[in-house]
């Protein structure tokens, strides 16, 4: 019996015990809210108590609504976060967010920096995945606009199959974007995307589309309330660093 099965069994038979098991998740979420300045340090315990109380009150509903398609732990973390947000909406922002330590430090090759960098890069990768059908286009534009090398793997994200020759031709065409001004890049990518997506998108609408997705990506990277201050340029630096690390 794996951990999830044990936890599901507890949900049915002994929800209080399950709640005890999940105290670390509750504290993890509350601490995250504290680090974002949404909870005062001394209010953390009160918030944890409030969450426990509400979870107990809602337990019958949770038992009825959980549909076993996800890990119970994940499902509970979603509910805990919702309760946190409810409480936050009641009281509003209570303090300034703690500055995030890695924003103060300069880029270095220490293991800590590397760890933080990897964490950030992973976050960016996840955000790209969240764009679902648009992730291929966003990923391609992100790389081209930031003068990164586009490889087969990036084109594979687009639906449909292409011959090796076709793939090579497209990669060569994309490669011509290097050191071009942004306007020219959108023109080239607009042409490349036509066979990849089976439809033509004008360079201007492509620019607008990328601009809106980039804004969304930056919002997600920075968090809400903001804990980072990524810009279009710093995302480029993050990509460059990732490429250097891969090399």
């Amino acid at each position: 019996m794996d951990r999830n099965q044990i936890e599901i069994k507890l949900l049915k038979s002994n929800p209080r015990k399950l709640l005890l098991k999940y105290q670390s998740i509750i504290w993890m979420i509350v601490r995250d809210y504290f680090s974002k300045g949404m909870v005062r340090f001394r209010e953390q315990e009160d918030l944890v108590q409030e969450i426990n109380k509400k979870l107990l009150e809602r337990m019958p509903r949770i038992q009825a609504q959980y549909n076993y398609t996800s890990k119970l732990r994940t499902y509970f973390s979603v509910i805990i976060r919702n309760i946190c947000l409810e409480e936050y909406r009641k009281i509003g922002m209570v303090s300034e967010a703690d500055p995030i330590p890695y924003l103060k430090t300069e880029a270095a090759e220490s293991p800590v920096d590397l760890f933080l960098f990897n964490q950030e890069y992973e976050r960016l990768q996840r955000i790209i995945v969240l764009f679902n059908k648009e992730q291929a286009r966003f990923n391609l534009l992100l790389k081209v606009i930031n003068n990164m090398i586009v490889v087969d793997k990036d084109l594979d994200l687009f639906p449909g199959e292409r011959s090796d020759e076709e793939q090579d031709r497209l990669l060569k065409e994309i490669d011509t974007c290097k050191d071009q001004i942004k306007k020219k890049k959108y023109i080239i990518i607009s042409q490349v995307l036509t066979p990849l997506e089976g439809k033509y998108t004008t360079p201007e609408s492509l620019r607008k589309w990328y601009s809106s997705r980039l804004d969304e990506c930056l919002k997600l990277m920075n968090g809400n309330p903001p804990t980072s201050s990524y810009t279009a340029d710093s995302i480029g630096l993050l990509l460059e660093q990732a490429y250097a690390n891969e090399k």
Partner: protein
Amino acid sequence: MDEVKQHIDDNAIAGYIDWLRSDGPKPEESILDHVASCSSCKSSILELSEMLDGQDKAEEPTESRKRKMIFILRAVALLAGVLAVAMMIQFLKPEKKSVEMAQVNDDSLRIIAPSEQLETDTILLRNDAEAEVIDIIQHDTILYAANYVPNQGLEALVSARFRSVTLDNKNNIMIPGVLMRGEELSLDLSDIEDKEIEFILVSNTGENLLLVNPKELKIEIKLNFDPGLYYWKLISSDDILMVGKFRLNNEE
């Protein structure tokens, strides 16, 4: 992009998080589409997936420590098992017969019977005074060697000169230092003035083995004794005339 008004439920968000963390199946296309178009869902999924990653990473050291502890416990248990089996084998192994050579008196050792000899691997020589047990290698030669241990009391007499000796020609009763088992010992005591004499063969432990009262003053003894060191005494009616010794060896 227009956000879809109807948000996905908590189960779908949880499922999406699991998939994003490579810990669950891919959500339905409709859910993927909704998340792609909903910045609020994107935000909560991203936030929680990272938090759960952090939680897992925090639990990793404990897990690895647990695994390490289990490994150590298993190794110790295995070692203890091997030791227990080894001790059991040692315990069940037939004990080798040990022969104790006890001192009969201060200056002699008990002669072990030939049947007891040359059969054992281990012999313990116990020194009662110090209660110390000495383990000796090449044990089957020990009993044999015990027969050759000199008797300190008799040794002192061997080289002594006796005032009462009346032998004019000692050569007649000289016995070679080394004799072979089964050999015949012949002595001519005709030169001895005192005719009331006795010839006593003594073991190295001081035990009288043979007493001969030679009437014709000639002795012939078949040496069928065990190999070892033997002493002989020639005694008159009132005094010791002579004491000697010889080694009786096995025939080659």
